[in-house]
Every structure is written in structure tokens, then in C-alpha cells.
């Protein structure tokens, strides 16, 4: 646990983004998979998932842009601004294509960079599916959901959906913050939470709108129960991986939320209500609604607790520094698990470019106040 870092101040916008993005991704990969494998058994239920995914991913875009210190530069996530300026100076699109083609920027080892592209692709896929699900039949439905194009869309969409659900956790782990970077289990936990909150939202909306046949909804409940059990296992993995640092985490209010409230509210209560609904012959709708609502509340608590705990640990760092072990981080021969370098920065030697894909060394004119050179 590295206690010497600064707080990135990722606050409520990001908590909401992780929560809303999880629902959108979960609803979308569930809807796509159900449509792919369910056939007639899917009973129009995927439509509900598509209704959820696209509006929420638009909301995600807004939340993420608002969170930037310079929202006017949100597009720098995807393209190199100076290349775009260069292309525009050459009267793009009538010229300057070389510069424009060199503009897209993807750092495959940076979760935020890949995640930005994944969100763009996810927005496209979910937008098309949304168009295809506005009506229950017609040209759009045949073209965007029932044709071979629809199949490809569902396949790609479900994969991108899984990615969007999990990458936020990998993004947190790919830092040096306490808690986040001490465990690889945040990403799979976010993924299972996306599945359970996505299913919960689909079930609620299906009940409200009357779209999606009850048998299909019942099958989705079964998926949700399995997803919740998986979430419980992943949560146990998270706790075990953090055992060494349990005390500093537990000593913060958000840490207690994470360890107690998240599994209780987000996993155990929904499971209990599903079980109660299953045992009850009349299948009281209230149990289903309660299970879904607790799932959603748990998903929100999870994002809040995970995002806010490191800051609280850092606030107490003066009392922890002498006691917190820092294990060797996977280098070959260190004994720690290491799956090899995935970024050119890893093992970079002096003089090499490393993870700077567009090294402009020597090109830039830094601001200066040296007389005559300002």
C-alpha cells in the first residue's frame, strides 16, 4: 500500500458515472446475450435493455465531460489536438489528410485511453440497438436486430458492454492509490455489479412498461441470482486479496461501508428477496421490486465506497506509514506474480520513446522568459 500519493479528487461525477455506466453496460450485454442465445425464449425482453443502455451512455458522456477540469478539451481523449489543428490549417478536408489520419490517439496499455474508445464504440452499438428497439416490429427491428448485421451488433455490443463494465475497475487498479492498486479484483467486482444492477433495471422497467413476457423476466431473474452469487464470490476474492491491509481500510467509514454494507445491501438482501419470492407460491411482485431496488442501492454504495476509501486512508497516513507493508511488485525473480510488460514504458531504457507514442522531443517550444527568446 503506497501512502505517499496525491488524491486525484475523483468525486461524485465519477461515482455517478461508474454507477450509471455499470447499469448501461450490464443492461446492454445482458440484452445482447439474451437476444443472441435466447431466440423466441427472449420474449421481447432485450428491447428493455436497449432502451436503458443508450440514454444512460449519453448521460455517462455528460458526466465524464463535466468532471474534466477542461471540459472543452474532452476530445483530446481520442485525438491529438495539434494534429487536428495542423490538418485544419491545411484546409481539411480538401487537404491535410496526412495530419488528420495521424490524429487518432490510442494507448492500448492505458485503461483510460482504451476506455474512451470503448465508450465511443459502445455508444454507437447501443445507439443502433436503441433505434432497433423503439418499435416491436418493422424495418428497423429486422435490420438492426434480426439480420446478420443485428447478430454482429449483438456480438460486438456484448463484448464492448463487458469491457465498459469492467474497465473502470482496471482503471482504478492501474494507479498507485491505496486499495485500488492493491487488488486486481475491483474490475471483476464492477463487472458483476454491472450485471446485477443492469438486470435489476431491466426487470423494473419490464414490469413498469409491460414489455417482455413474464417467462423471460423469470429467466432474467435466474440470471440475476447467478450473477449475485458470482458477485459474492468475487467480493470474497476482493477481501482476501486485501487481507494484509484490512485494518487501514476498516478504520475508515467508507471502508466499513465497503466491507459490510455493500455485500449486505447489494448482494445478500437481493438474494434473500429473490429466495422469498421463489418460496412464495403467489410470487408477490413486491419481493422482486425490493430485490431490484436493493441491487441498485448496493451498486451505488459499491462505487461510492471504492472511490472514496483511498482518500480517507491517505488522511490517516501519518499513523500508518511505519506499519504498512509494500510488497515487491512483480518484477521477474521478485516472487510476485507478473504477466510480462504490456506497456513500452515497462523496462524502457534511457533514450527510448516508451509510452509516449507521439514523442515530440525537440519539436516543442516551451514557454520561457530567457531574454530574447520569450
Amino acid at each position: 500500500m503506497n501512502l505517499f500519493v496525491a488524491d486525484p479528487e475523483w468525486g461524485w461525477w465519477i461515482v455517478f458515472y461508474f454507477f450509471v455506466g455499470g447499469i448501461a453496460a450490464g443492461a446492454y450485454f445482458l440484452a445482447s446475450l439474451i437476444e443472441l442465445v435466447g431466440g423466441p425464449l427472449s420474449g421481447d425482453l432485450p428491447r428493455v435493455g436497449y432502451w436503458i443502455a443508450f440514454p444512460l451512455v449519453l448521460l455517462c458522456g455528460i458526466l465524464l465531460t463535466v468532471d474534466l477540469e477542461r471540459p472543452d478539451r474532452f476530445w483530446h481523449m481520442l485525438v491529438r489536438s495539434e494534429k487536428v489543428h495542423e490538418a485544419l490549417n491545411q484546409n481539411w478536408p480538401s487537404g491535410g489528410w496526412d495530419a488528420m489520419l495521424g490524429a487518432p490517439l490510442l494507448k492500448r496499455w492505458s485503461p483510460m485511453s482504451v476506455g474512451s474508445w470503448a465508450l465511443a464504440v459502445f455508444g454507437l452499438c447501443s445507439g443502433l440497438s436503441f433505434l432497433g428497439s423503439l418499435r416491436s416490429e418493422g424495418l428497423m427491428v429486422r435490420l438492426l436486430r434480426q439480420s446478420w448485421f443485428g447478430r454482429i451488433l449483438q456480438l460486438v455490443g456484448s463484448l464492448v458492454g463487458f469491457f465498459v463494465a469492467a474497465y473502470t475497475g482496471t482503471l482504478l487498479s492501474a494507479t498507485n492509490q491505496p486499495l485500488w492498486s492493491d487488488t486486481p479484483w475491483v474490475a471483476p467486482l464492477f463487472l458483476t455489479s454491472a450485471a446485477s444492477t443492469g438486470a435489476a433495471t431491466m426487470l423494473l422497467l419490464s414490469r413498469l412498461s409491460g414489455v417482455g413476457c413474464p417467462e423471460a423476466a423469470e429467466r432474467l431473474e435466474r440470471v440475476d441470482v447467478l450473477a449475485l452469487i458470482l458477485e459474492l464470490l468475487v467480493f470474497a476474492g476482493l477481501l482476501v486479496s486485501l487481507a494484509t491491509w484490512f485494518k487501514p481500510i476498516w478504520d475508515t467509514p467508507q471502508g466499513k461501508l465497503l466491507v459490510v454494507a455493500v455485500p449486505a445491501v447489494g448482494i445478500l438482501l437481493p438474494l434473500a428477496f429473490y429466495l422469498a419470492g421463489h418460496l412464495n407460491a403467489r410470487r408477490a411482485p413486491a419481493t422482486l421490486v425490493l430485490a431490484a431496488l436493493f441491487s441498485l442501492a448496493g451498486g451505488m454504495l459499491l462505487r461510492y465506497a471504492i472511490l472514496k476509501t483511498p482518500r480517507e486512508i491517505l488522511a490517516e497516513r501519518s499513523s500508518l506509514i511505519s506499519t504498512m507493508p509494500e510488497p515487491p511488485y512483480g518484477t521477474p525473480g521478485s516472487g510476485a506474480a507478473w504477466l510480462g510488460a504490456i506497456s513500452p514504458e515497462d523496462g524502457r531504457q534511457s533514450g527510448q520513446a516508451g509510452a509516449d507514442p507521439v514523442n515530440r522531443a525537440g519539436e516543442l517550444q516551451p514557454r520561457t522568459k530567457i531574454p530574447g527568446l520569450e
Partner: protein
Amino acid sequence: MPEAVGFFTDTTVCIGCKACEVACHQWNDLPAQLGPPQSDGLRHPLPLTGDSYDNTGSLSDLNWRHVKFIEQFSPDRKQAAWLMMSDVCKHCANAPCLEVCPTGAILRTEFDTVYIHEPACNGCRDCVSACPFGVIHMSQDPNKLVAQKCTFCYDRLRHDLAPACAQACPTQSIMFGPLKQLQEKARSRVRQLQQEGVKSARLYGEDKTILGGLNAFYLLVDRPETYGLPANPKLPSRKVPWSSFLSIVTALFTGLAVLFAFRSRTERPEVRESA
């Protein structure tokens, strides 16, 4: 290509004068750090920290150098000693901030230093969370609002001048020069101190063990943690493979759950056959 350059900071000769801080503020036009707005609507200078002679507190968007004062007392508190250390961006050979930056705003200069190109930064703060030393902070200046840190006086290097802090340091605690020469100098200095009986003298970041080597490395006389330096900082990408692998496995199980629930062989076989 010019040679790789670095700082070798010998903390044993630091006298805590903060000339480096002043020189840095002056050259880089960094204003004084003010506190949050008070009841009169104005921002005032920060009150005294009460932490030894350190009133800078920490590195920040406006303090790119920070002289740390670490007070050490014997158990009976009859003897006291100060450790002083001028902290700065380490300009890592394997730089966590540069690795995660999604906009390409953080880049490596021809001098092998790490530089934030402000016009490209969009303020996502991933570099802040990635830096294992807590160096990078977001500018509070409404005209900037981008990530800020030591530039290694990139503009001065371009014109064959030493960085302002190193030039100002009166005891040569901060030494500037070609990295290879500095590493030689540092090793001989440790040998000298060891021979003189300072058995705890050690280097931090001079070899490749800390993030492939630090271009700003240190001579310390206590554990790195005592100086507020992490013992084993890591590259953010080191966590990506396991995190991805576990996510893929979890996704597969989730997919299987859907398959299991929507492809039941026992129920409604007539529908399955017609499908």
C-alpha cells in the same frame, strides 16, 4: 540527441534553506500558495503548519520543489536530529504518469526528462492518481486547470542553462548534470560516507530498481519511508494483466449464466425445436 540529464540530491548536505523553492517559484512565475477562500471572500496565505520548519507542506500545483524537514528524537527525547530533503518530480525512467496519460500531454523530452505539455492536458487527473510520489497536482488557476509539476526547467535546458533550483543550491545538495556522471558521483559519495561510519547511507533511484531508475535520485541516511518515499513504487500497467484476466473469466461466467437460463433443455422443448 542531447545527453540524459538528472538531479542527484545529497540530503546529507542539505541545510534546509529553501533557496531551491524560491528559485523555482521565481523562474517559473509560481505565485505563493494561498488557502481556500475565507469568510471575507479572499484567499489568504496558509497559516503556519506547525510541522518543524516546513511551511510549504507538500508539493502542489504551485510548489514544484518542497524541502522536507523530518525531526528524529531519541526515545528519551534528549537528542534530536533533522533530516532535510528537497523533494521534486523524479523524472522516472519508467514514468507512471506518462504511461497512463490518455491525451499524450505528458511526454519525454530530448533530455530524458518528463514534461507536461499544457495545451494538450484536459484535466482527467489520471496522472495524479498514477504518480507513486504524489508529485502531480491540478492547477487551481482558473486560466489553467491542467496538471502541474516540475518541468526540469525544460526551457533552460534548451538554452544550456542549469535548472534554477540546482543553480541556486548553496551547498550543492542538488547537483545537476549528465545522468551517468551523477550516478558515478553518487556511488563514490556513498562509499565515502560508509567509510566514515555512516552505515545507513544509501541511494534511492540511482539504479534500475526504482521504476527503471530515477533521473532525480537521492542519497538518504534512513529508510525511504522516513523521507516520504515509497519503498516499491510500481508502474500502473503492472496491474492491468491480472485485472483483465479476472474480468474476462468473470464475464465468461456471466455469459454462461445467461446461456444456462435462456437455453434450458428441460423446459419448453417445443419452442426450442421450432427455433
